[in-house]
């Protein structure tokens, strides 16, 4: 075959591949989204210097404070030290963008759930749908996140490391001393992803012995969710990115500005399948939130509900429905167009559970079934759901941890204390 025939053969073979007409536009939009990060040209050295300086400050403060996120002191017997009756929630050191939630709950099915409270590391297990709870704490330190990875095993991130909890044996095994994993998204007991306190996404495939940082095209990240082996979404104050190829490449779907007057502090996504999902952006403590919905895998995100008088218009984007004021936490997606979230009034110590069944256009809210003294300070409540069973966990400063379970989608509740 002659040289010119080779050129023709290659063109015949590969000219069948064409980019979609909007592919170049999307590619440069991705650059624009990435350009808002700290690694743009001309800013790299400055960014690296800033990061270095920030790390120096963080480590200096850690040394001065005796290591803010180091394991707490243990008693001589090796048992967890007993926390004071009403210890303050930990203040994150500079550079820490993700704070652990004060209350946590992870549901395996309508009978089995783990509940925990971050400040004292207490973990409770129920196997009878919340009728009784049993303390199962065997790890030490503050609790950061809980996740069931199979019918018998949960991964638990704490201030002293990442643990495996085996329900049948009531046994704890520490996988790694790494103590900055504030959000877990594991596939099984040996592999998965996590979001760190600094807002990085890390991945392990060897039961946590090693973690590798993954670039998801967004930093900092506050939430990550995989819905299949190939598709995942990451969310943070600057927007949402997603991957369709197992994390090899990430595409920006929503870009939010970091405005001088304030910006999103916490973002969360929740998908039930590869098309339908919600996102919640919390605009600062007590500042309000906006909930977005997508029905096309995030190609378009529509702002549906907000505490609209407390968030800027660049965030609410014409959202039509009103959400109650307060700090919003724990977006729980129960169906393609249905979701729950908790609205917290931290000063009054109260919480409400709000539900939507029409993709966020309308929300109905009812008070959480806890009777708390007036003006009782508390952190956000945690909510998890499996079918009609809802599990609500709250940590009120003056009364301690509270639990509530409903098996009829919130119509009636059983409350108690661990």
């Amino acid at each position: 075959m002659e040289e010119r025939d080779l050129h023709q053969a290659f063109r015949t073979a590969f000219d069948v591949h064409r980019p979609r007409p909007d592919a170049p536009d999307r590619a440069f939009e991705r650059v624009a989204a990435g350009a808002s990060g700290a690694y743009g040209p001309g800013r790299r050295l400055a960014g690296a210097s800033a990061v270095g300086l920030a790390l120096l400050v963080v480590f200096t403060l850690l040394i001065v404070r005796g290591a803010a996120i180091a394991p707490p002191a243990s008693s001589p017997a090796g048992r967890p030290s007993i926390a004071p009756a009403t210890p303050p929630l930990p203040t994150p050191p500079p550079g820490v963008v993700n704070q652990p939630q004060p209350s946590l709950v992870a549901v395996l099915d309508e009978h089995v759930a783990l509940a925990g409270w971050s400040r004292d590391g207490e973990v409770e297990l129920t196997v009878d749908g919340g009728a009784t709870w049993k303390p199962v704490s065997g790890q030490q330190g503050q609790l950061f996140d809980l996740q069931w990875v199979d019918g018998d095993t949960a991964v638990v991130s704490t201030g002293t490391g990442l643990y495996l909890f085996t329900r049948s044996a009531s046994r704890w095994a520490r996988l790694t001393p790494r103590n900055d994993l504030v959000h877990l998204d594991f596939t099984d007991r040996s592999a998965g992803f996590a979001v760190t306190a600094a807002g990085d996404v890390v991945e392990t495939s060897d039961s946590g012995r090693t973690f590798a940082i993954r670039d998801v095209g967004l930093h900092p990240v506050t939430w990550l969710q995989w819905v299949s082996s190939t598709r995942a979404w990451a969310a943070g104050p600057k927007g949402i990115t997603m991957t369709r190829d197992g994390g090899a490449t990430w595409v920006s779907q929503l870009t939010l500005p970091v405005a001088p007057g304030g910006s999103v502090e916490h973002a969360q996504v929740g998908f039930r399948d590869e098309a339908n999902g919600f996102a919640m952006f919390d605009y600062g403590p007590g500042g309000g939130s906006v909930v977005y919905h997508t029905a096309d895998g995030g190609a378009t995100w529509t702002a549906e509900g907000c505490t609209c008088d407390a968030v800027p218009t660049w965030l609410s984007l014409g959202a039509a429905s009103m959400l109650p004021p307060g700090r919003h936490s724990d977006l729980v997606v129960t169906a393609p167009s249905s979701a729950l979230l908790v609205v917290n009034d931290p000063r009054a110590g109260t919480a409400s559970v709000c539900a939507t069944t029409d993709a966020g256009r309308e929300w109905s809210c009812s008070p959480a079934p806890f009777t708390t003294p007036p003006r009782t300070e508390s952190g956000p409540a945690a909510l998890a759901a499996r079918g009609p069973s809802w599990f609500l966990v709250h940590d009120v400063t003056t009364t301690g941890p509270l639990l509530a379970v409903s098996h009829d989608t919130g119509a009636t509740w059983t409350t108690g204390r661990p």
Partner: protein
Amino acid sequence: MVTATTAELLERSLAGDRLAFERLFRPLYDDGFRLAAAMLSDASLAEDAVQEALLKAWRKLYTFRTGEDVRPWFLTIVANQCRSLRRARWWSVQRLAEVEPPARARQDPAVAERMDLEAALRRLPRRARLLLVLRYYLDMSFEDIGLVVGASPAAVKSSTHRALVRLRAEWGPAEASN
């Protein structure tokens, strides 16, 4: 050669001007896509590779030496991105028995030749495939290919010749029938 306009766009891009960066690199999108499509044999993956390569080009623009040609510098990033994509996706690749193309496709000589050439290229080492794609699909000179792969024009010429010999061996039956 870098024209005055290109140099100006480069300078503005380095200062953080995203639009200047887009003006500089948008004309290279098609070349990047063609390289990625030929290396990956998948249009969707090729889009992703070029998109990621553009982001890396933006982030690493400070490494570009003024006075050089932007095209081979960008194609180097695309080629590396294709390699990363292949490496990252190893777990999703399932080794199947050689699949016979549908009978109708085999009856169409153009389709059969295309499939045979793609299959033959896939059996070559990555570097050999890259050299052949740059030479015979992107119609690049040995000098420019040398800038992409980091080798002298003479070395590129001999390597390309050896790659072509291997391709002919893999592609032999189909080529012989032409």
